[in-house]
């Protein structure tokens, strides 16, 4: 879907590209927002190009699922912290993947040691820091952009 790559597109232009009608597209988008298929619009930032010295951490968490509630309850207790960017339930060697973006080392270590590890059902955590982002949301972060084709060809 076009919007997934470019949420800022002008609706009139989108209608032209898709050979559709502007009002029709506006309605469809409104419906998808209503049904929470479209949950928000974000800006993708390459922090490496800014002066920010902050880091992103992926934290593997092993937990004890709770009777009657599975993982949902413990996941909620984690995602309610505003500094948590994403939480996923994962198959494999651990249970939850918790992501903190653009935090200082101190903020992350405080979150892990004071908040996460102290939760009753958390058995263990393992924190990984992102060293370099190559590709995010389908976009390669450092792609050459100039056109190398010959300028006029038959």
């Amino acid at each position, binding site marked *: 879907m*076009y919007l997934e790559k470019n949420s800022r597109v002008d609706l009139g*232009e989108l209608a*032209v*590209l*898709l*050979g559709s009608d502007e009002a029709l597209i506006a309605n469809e988008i409104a419906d998808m927002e209503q049904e929470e298929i479209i949950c928000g619009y974000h800006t993708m930032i390459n922090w490496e190009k800014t002066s920010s010295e902050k880091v992103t951490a992926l934290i593997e968490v092993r937990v004890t699922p709770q009777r009657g509630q599975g993982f949902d309850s413990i996941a909620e207790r984690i995602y309610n912290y505003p500094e948590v960017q994403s939480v996923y339930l994962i198959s494999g060697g651990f249970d939850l993947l918790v992501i903190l973006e653009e935090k200082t080392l101190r903020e992350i270590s405080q979150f892990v040691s004071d908040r996460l590890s102290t939760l009753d059902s958390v058995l263990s955590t393992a924190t990984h820091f992102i060293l370099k982002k190559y590709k995010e949301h389908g976009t390669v972060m450092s792609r050459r952009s100039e*056109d190398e*084709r*010959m*300028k*006029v*060809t*038959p």
Partner: protein
Amino acid sequence: MRDPLNSRIRQVEPSGIRKFFDVVTEMQDAISLGVGEPDFDTPWHIRDEGIYALERGRTFYTSNAGLPELKQEIARYLSRRFGLSYDPASEVLVTVGGSEAIDLALRVMLEEGDEVLIPQPSYVSYSPCTVMAGGVPVTIALREEDQFKLTPEALEAAITPKTKILVLPFPNNPTGAIMTREELLPIAECVIRHDLFVVSDEIYAELTYDHEHTSIASLDGMPERTVVINGFSKSHAMTGWRLGYTCGPQQIIAQMLKLHQFAIMCAPTNSQYAAVSALKNGDEDVQQMRDSYNQRRRFLMHAFEQMGIQCFEPFGAFYVFPSIQEFGMSSDCFATRLLEEERVAVVPGTAFGACGEGFVRISYAYSLDALKVALERFARFIERLRADGGNE
């Protein structure tokens, strides 16, 4: 000293696009809409297969006609996509791009003085290859009011007792015109009635919009008199890999293979391995690129409509061919001034035949952002021309 040159090569004009190319290349800040190749990179799985072939040391010749596995996949693909049926062992030849295949076909089929019907505007190589093969190119001027399609009337009118071959260049570069099955039927009937052969250049077959491509070779009575030309350049964004193929009656392909053997040996080996992956796992890539071209096509058509520029709606390739007749200047002059005044390069219609006069070719093998910038400049240019015209 004796003349070192063959008299035919003197008859061949240098490509009309060439002088324009030199000017554009010198201009660092020019935006080009003049490119005749996809802007996409070759899909990664195809490139990966090419790299893998190199890693495995697959750097030897293949058999002259091409890798058996690739010929097999080509036959399957043509059957699955266009309902064509070819024996991979004797009716498929892998070539260095579609352009080699055009040259081979004309050279093995033409006798001295045979006439070749070439609908124009069209790709630049048909006429020179005909001349070098001893044939006589006979142009059929396609008209905008026919949406640049070949009509049976125009075909009939061009046929003489010397006519042997009809070149059928659809989907068309530079006009973007296509021929539907219904429109091909009377052409096929005429070809059969006059006992002609067809060289059908279908290199843009995968790039049709709102219509499915029909190959004339899929019509009754046509497989035995058609040489189909196709390749990977446009469909899979593989221009630089130099890989095409041709299919046709065993009798013709066998002779083309002979020439290919002596002149070329075989198409590049790692390109052939990569192409196997293109045909086995590439359908989705083709679909994505087609969708993207189609969006840009609609965008351009809409933009021209807004500018009040007359342009018939093309349903194939990645070109639009708007009319510039209202400005009362030649295509060459229009393109030169557009380049000099607004730094936008388009190709004059006359580069594709005299009947392209009054039109320019605009390629949409560019990102939407690039197209937007170029169109802004284009709009500014024609506004100025119109204002100047009004003052005189």
